[in-house]
Every structure is written in structure tokens, then in C-alpha cells.
């Protein structure tokens, strides 16, 4: 087994929704309004090994992007610990050049590129500022990286709006690669693209991973993409990880009822990429999640106990880790 590159322990992140001052005032004068605190990520623990790809899957709003930003070190945690190669983030982030080893590719190919900067600067800026390449050689350096992501050298002097969606995402990937990361977090990196373009970008990411041995966290709500790319998969529901398993095992024998429902909604034979089938029942509001197991209002095997007890992640015989009180019962 490879060395551990990243470890997260009990990561949580809450947001205060609405204007804090007026929210408090309103609470004071109108009595029993519930506090407007949203737990976007709730006690999530993850590990990632060198060269490994971990998938994170879950419905929209379940906290994937929040988790990704905390792992990337661009969003403070409410509680929990993050370690990169054994070093806590607090000290890592203080040394900017080392913190560059963790990079992220964003979902929206347009808004993730500064519209006022030319591609040359978007890609080369950080490398120059952090001294990875002297200013005099940055042009060749950037052209080199653009070639790696399949963009022509003359992209250098152009602006993001002059490119197609797929090309923009390539620029975003080039920007990350330019600072030589060891760990790449892809937050729905292909979700905004056309299906044909999605395949190209996924192939590009696989090439990069093969060539440089990057560790990756690949976030998606598209199960077939996850299955194609990842070594292990974490399934999230309303801010919590409900199942964590090797990809093969997860798709062969899902343990958690939520995972099963996700897979049931997936076309059986083809590799055709599909979004989730809608699952029965509304997705509860993350502002007031159901008690006990968050999934109980939609769970076919929910019992009375599920309303009261929060299920903890535990390992079952097969080596899968899941958070369900009743799975053994099936």
C-alpha cells in the first residue's frame, strides 16, 4: 500500500444563513425561530493514498463542494483536522510553496477563470510568483503546459471568453498543473460540459494521472464517471458520508440503502453516462435535516430507531464501511 497523502478527521463546516445581526435580532424579538445554522459538512473523515483516486458522489447540495474547498485549504473548517503528508494544514498553509501541492479544478469553466487576464497570465502567474519558474522563461513554460492539456501555443495571448467550455476547462486544468501539484481535487470538473466534451476532459485527467502519479479526489454526481475513474468511492448524503468502499465492491454489492437506490437508478449494462434517477421523496432541506439517520424519510427499511439514533460509520465483514443501523438485517 502506498503512503498516506491526505487525511481528514471529523471535518465539519457550518454556515450561518442570512444576515447575522438581523438574524439575531429577529430571533430575539420573534421568539422561537430556529437558529439559521446550516451544517453543510458533518463529521466527515477521509483518507487518500499517494497516486490513488477517491470518488465523492452525492446529490446536489449534499456538501461535496464545501468538503472539496476544505480539503483544498481555501475554506476554514468549523471543526476537525486535516493533514497533508502527516502535516497539519495550519502549518502547511503558512508555507505557500508547499501548500501549492494541493490544487483544485472547479466546476464552472467560465467563472473559474478571471475574465480580465490572458491565458498566459492565468496559467503562469502563480508559478512565477512562487518562484517555480523565472519570469524570463515563463512563456515557454506555459506553452509547454498548454500543450500537455491539448491547447495550442497561441492560446497564450487570448482571453477566456474566446474559448469553448471544454477548452476553458483545459485552461483550468493547466492552471493547476502549472504549480506541480501532488494532489488534485476535481469538483464536478465535467458537470457543466457537453457529454462528448466530458469524455475528452476525463481522458485528459486520466492521462495526467498516469503521467504524473497524482493523487486525485474526484467529485461528481455522475456514477458512471466515478466508476470509470476511481479506486474508492465515498457516498455522501446531507453532509455526511454514508458509505465508503472500493469501487468494484461498491458497484457490485452496495451496503447502504441510499447507495442501493442510487445504483438502482443507474442503467445496468451500458457505460453511457447518466445523472441520478430521481429517488422517491423530496431531498430534505439541509437547514433542518431529519433527526437520527438523515435518510430515514426516504429509506425503505427505516425503523423507529432510525429516527432517534445517529448511525456511525462502521466496517462490515466485506470491508465496506457504511453508516446504517439496519443493513445486516437485510
Amino acid at each position, binding site marked *: 500500500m502506498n503512503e498516506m497523502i491526505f487525511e481528514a478527521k471529523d471535518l465539519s463546516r457550518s454556515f450561518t444563513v442570512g444576515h447575522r445581526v438581523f438574524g439575531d435580532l429577529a430571533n430575539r424579538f420573534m421568539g422561537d425561530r430556529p437558529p439559521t445554522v446550516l451544517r453543510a459538512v458533518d463529521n466527515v473523515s477521509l483518507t487518500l493514498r499517494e497516486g490513488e483516486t477517491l470518488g465523492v458522489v452525492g446529490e446536489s447540495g449534499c456538501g461535496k463542494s464545501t468538503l472539496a*474547498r476544505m480539503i*483544498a*485549504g*481555501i475554506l476554514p473548517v468549523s471543526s476537525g483536522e486535516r493533514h497533508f503528508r502527516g502535516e497539519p494544514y495550519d502549518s502547511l*498553509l503558512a508555507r*505557500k*510553496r508547499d*501548500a*501549492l501541492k*494541493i*490544487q*483544485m479544478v*472547479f*466546476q*464552472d469553466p467560465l*467563472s*473559474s*477563470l*478571471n*475574465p*480580465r*487576464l490572458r491565458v498566459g497570465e492565468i496559467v503562469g*502567474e*502563480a508559478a512565477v*510568483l*512562487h518562484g517555480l519558474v523565472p519570469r524570463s522563461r515563463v512563456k515557454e513554460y506555459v506553452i509547454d503546459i498548454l500543450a500537455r492539456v491539448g491547447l495550442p501555443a497561441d492560446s497564450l495571448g487570448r*482571453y477566456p471568453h*474566446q474559448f469553448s467550455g471544454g477548452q476553458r476547462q483545459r485552461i*483550468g486544468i493547466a*492552471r*493547476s498543473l502549472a*504549480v506541480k501539484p501532488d494532489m488534485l481535487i476535481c469538483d464536478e470538473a465535467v458537470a457543466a460540459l457537453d457529454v462528448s466534451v466530458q469524455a475528452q476532459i476525463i481522458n485528459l485527467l486520466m492521462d495526467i494521472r498516469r503521467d504524473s502519479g497524482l493523487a486525485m479526489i474526484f467529485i461528481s454526481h455522475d456514477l458512471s464517471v466515478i466508476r470509470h475513474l476511481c479506486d474508492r468511492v465515498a457516498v455522501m448524503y446531507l453532509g455526511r458520508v454514508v458509505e465508503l468502499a472500493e469501487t468494484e465492491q461498491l458497484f457490485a454489492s452496495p451496503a447502504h440503502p441510499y447507495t442501493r437506490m442510487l445504483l438502482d437508478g443507474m442503467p445496468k449494462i451500458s457505460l453511457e453516462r447518466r445523472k441520478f434517477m430521481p429517488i422517491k421523496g423530496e431531498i430534505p432541506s439541509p437547514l433542518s435535516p431529519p433527526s437520527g439517520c438523515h435518510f430515514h424519510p426516504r429509506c425503505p427499511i427505516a425503523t423507529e430507531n432510525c429516527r432517534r439514533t445517529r448511525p456511525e460509520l462502521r466496517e462490515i465483514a466485506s470491508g465496506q464501511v457504511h453508516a446504517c443501523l439496519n443493513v445486516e438485517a437485510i
Partner: protein
Amino acid sequence: MSTTGFNDFAQRFAESRTAVISLLISLVFVACALFAPLMSPTDPYDLTQLQLSDALKPAGSTRMLPGEEVRANIRFQGGTASVEPASPAQTRQSITAESCGANCLGVGVAPEGTKLASLQIRNLPAGASVEGGKKHIVQPWWTVDNPEDGRVRIVSNSQLPENFTVLAIAKSLDRETDFVFRLGTDGFGRDMLSAILYGIRISVFVGLVAAGAAMVLGTGFGLLAAWRGGVTDAIIMRAVDFMLGLPALLVGLAILAILGNGVSKVVLAIVIVQWSYYARTARSFAISELGKEYVEAARCLRLSPTRIMLRHVLPNCMPQIIVLFTLNIAAAISLESSLSFLGVGLPLTRPSLGMLIASGYEFIFSHKYWISIYPGVVLLVMIVAMNLLGDRLRDLNNPRLDR
């Protein structure tokens, strides 16, 4: 901004005729400001060139050269007269004297026939007088206004003394020059056209410098508030709310009342009034930019907060800030003019447009309208043009009005 982006912008801008005309007018004013010394017929700051005789002349009048004064001592000795010129030496006329019979002495100027405003004879011997002359109440001075042919006669009923000396002072008529005051003159005889051109220069200069300084300061505070949030944001924004709640003119008056007047103080007053607009705008647009993923990407690239704010966020807020700047130049100019009009702005020796309007105000009821009206019209046109220009830029920047 890329060139295609700019061309597109220029094209959309040009769709409004008003905007194009406003732009042209604004550019003309900027040119006036830059080239006032080359364009203006006189230097209105050169007080030595001013003549009170030119004061309050209406548009189209010509400048008059004041008449010269020639003095000469005329000495009589045994019936013959000799002339000793006194100051000044360099004149067009000279004084002549000759006898005109018994007890009569003619005094005149050469060349003959020169029109004089007056010819004064002083220190006549007792008993003598000047034909057609008025005697000074106290002094032994006789003055003849507009003497015929420029000569007068000293006569006496009794015998004139053998030897005596008189002083003759000849004043020639004012002469017309071919210099025309195209917009008339003010109360000091200053050419209004020159004064207005220099006034535009001062007003535009004060407007640009003040609005520019307010832009830098206000944008800085706005970015700081957006980036730091929390207490910093609250303090800055309460200060902004406070400033926005006060009438600009009142704040300007209060500041200048404390500091005294002068260009730098007027600029300071305008900056204190205007920074809050930029702070509010910069903050709100910076906050919306900070929410975009490219900022998170920059953070992930471990760029410093200063670099993220100045290199990434600020350029994306610039269009809105530039619009505000255009509108605020006009506001700064009008505020400066108001303050100067109220007498707390710029000093009288270097008048801005507002000062000119104020200085004409005392004459407006004596039908000397031009001193106030012309600078007033110029100010009006300038402010309207800049406001229309700013409005157009704002409309072009407003995504909701995008077609």
C-alpha cells in the same frame, strides 16, 4: 479589455447620439483645460495688465489705451518762452508755447490739431487766467477740457511779469485698440473669455484631482471592507452611511470653514465628501466578485490577499468605478463651483467658474449680466455633458439593460 471587447463597447456607446456629443463636448473642455494658456487672448492672472478703464465692458467692446500725460515747464524770460519737458520723456506729444500778443501767451501741443482730453496750466502769476478754464478750488490750477485744436491761451488784464514759470500738463484722449473683449470684461477689467478659459482649467483640474483622489481612497476602503468583512466592514460601512446621509455642500462648507480656502483644501473637502460613493460601489462589486470561482482558484494558487484584491478583483470592479468617476468629476466640479460661489472655495486671484459667477453677481442687477451668465452657461454645459456621458457608460455597464 480585449480589442474586440473594446470595439464592441465603442460601437454600443456610439448608438446614442447624445452620448457621442457629450463625449465630444467633454473632450473640448479637457482641451480647454490643457491648452488654456495657448488659447486665451490674455493672461487673466497678470494683474499688471488690468486697467480699471476696461472694467464692466459688454461683449464685443474694444480695449482702450488710456491717454498719455505730458508735462512741461514753460519759462518766460523777457517775452520769450522756453519749454523744458518734464516727465515722461517718451511721448507722442510735446508741449509748445508762443506769445500771442500783449499779455497773452498760447500753450499747445505738437503736432498741431491733436485732440486732448484736457490741458492744465499750473502756477500762473497773479492776475493771469486761462481762457475757458476752470480753476481748482484751492490750488492755482486752471484746467481746460477738450481744448480746441489742443491749445489754450493764458491771458491777463494787467501786465504779465517779466519772468515766470508755469507747469503745463496735457492729457491726450484714450485711444482705441483693435483688441476685442469677445465676452466683455469683469469688474476688474479682466477679459471674460480668458478668465473663462482659465476658469475651465481650474475647475477641470480640481474636478479631476479631487474625484481621482476620492476614487483611490474610496475604492481602497471598499476593497478593504469587502475583503476583511466583519468588524472592519461594519465600521467602514457605517462611516459611509454617515457620509452619504449628509448633504455634500454642507459638509464642504463646514470643512472649508474650518480649514480656510485654497485649492488643496477644496480638493480635500471634495475627497471627504466623495470617497463614500466609491467605497460603497467598490465594496458591493468586490463582494460579488469575491464569490466567483476565479477568486477561489487564486486562493488555491496561494496568492497573497493583496494580490488577489488588486490584480484579480479590482480590475473586474473597474468598469463600475470608472462610471462613478465620470459622474463624480461633474459632481466635484459643481461642488467646487458652489463652494467658490459661496466664497469659501478658491481665491479671487485665480478664479474658477464658480468664482467668476459669484464675482458677476453684484453687477447682475445693473444689467451687466455677462460676467455671471457666460461662465454659468459654460459650467452648465460642462456638467450636463459629463453627466450624460457618465449615464451612458453606466447604462452600458448595467447587465440588466443588456439586450
